[in-house]
């Protein structure tokens, strides 16, 4: 049973689903039964190892497309077990589709702190009839839903109120952060 761009692509996608997208049903055995039913167990094991290693290289370096081409070219020039054009084509196609998605998955998997799930807000207006002061004084009520990565069922709800001056202070913080992001993160 020959390996070609199509069945290698299918194998790569299946491996990505299991290793990165949290779909454990795509086991090695399942993938063999679906994609390479006629391949010997030994040949399949070799292929699996080869594909896994190549994928790890791509993912670990988060290769851009120039780096990918250089990598594929070097693999195709090897004396032994050189990569075929069919294989290279499969990796190009795979990486085009999955590069960013896998990277984003790894980024979120490595946030072991709480994440902010939802932000809601409203503005209350306080008015007092007895004195002329404090009439129509607005205050911002913010509700944050904070999620713990270990216990994603349990969400912590935090509510707080800010008057205009506290909000101005918060906005200044936001601006300071944005300035730092521009300075340090060439996005």
């Amino acid at each position: 049973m020959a390996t070609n761009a199509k069945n290698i692509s299918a194998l790569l996608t299946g491996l990505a689903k299991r290793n990165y997208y949290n779909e454990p049903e795509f086991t090695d055995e399942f993938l063999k039964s679906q994609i390479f039913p006629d391949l010997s167990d030994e040949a399949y094991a070799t292929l699996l190892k080869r594909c896994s290693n190549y994928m790890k290289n791509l993912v670990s370096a988060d290769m851009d497309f120039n780096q990918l081409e250089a990598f594929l070219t070097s693999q195709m020039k090897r004396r032994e077990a050189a990569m075929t054009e069919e294989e290279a084509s499969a990796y190009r196609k795979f990486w085009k589709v999955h590069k960013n998605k896998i990277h984003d998955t790894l980024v979120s998997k490595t946030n072991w702190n709480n994440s902010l799930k939802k932000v809601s807000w409203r503005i209350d207006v306080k008015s007092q009839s007895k004195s002329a002061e404090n009439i129509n004084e607005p205050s911002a009520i913010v509700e944050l839903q904070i999620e713990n990565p270990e216990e994603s069922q349990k969400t912590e709800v935090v509510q707080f109120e800010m008057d205009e001056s506290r909000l101005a202070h918060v906005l200044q913080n936001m601006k300071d952060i944005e300035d730092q992001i521009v300075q340090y993160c060439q996005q």
Partner: protein
Amino acid sequence: SKECLNMDLSERGLTAGKLVDMKWKLGVAVCSDECKSLNSPFVAMTLKVADASGKISTHTFELTIPQFQNFSEQMKDMAARMEMI
């Protein structure tokens, strides 16, 4: 990220505390066991909220840059609305 939604809250029975402090840091996750080239900036924040009795609770979370920008936009929207009142 679509995780942060801008929603006006309807009347709630809960009493909101007061935000007394906000701290932040900007970091970059450089690499991990699965990815030598993670290069992922993040904003970590700690908020201190005092309830009516003065008791302070601390809440921390971490945001990706798009999540932070969404949060920041929400705060700006809120301030803009407040100006109109």
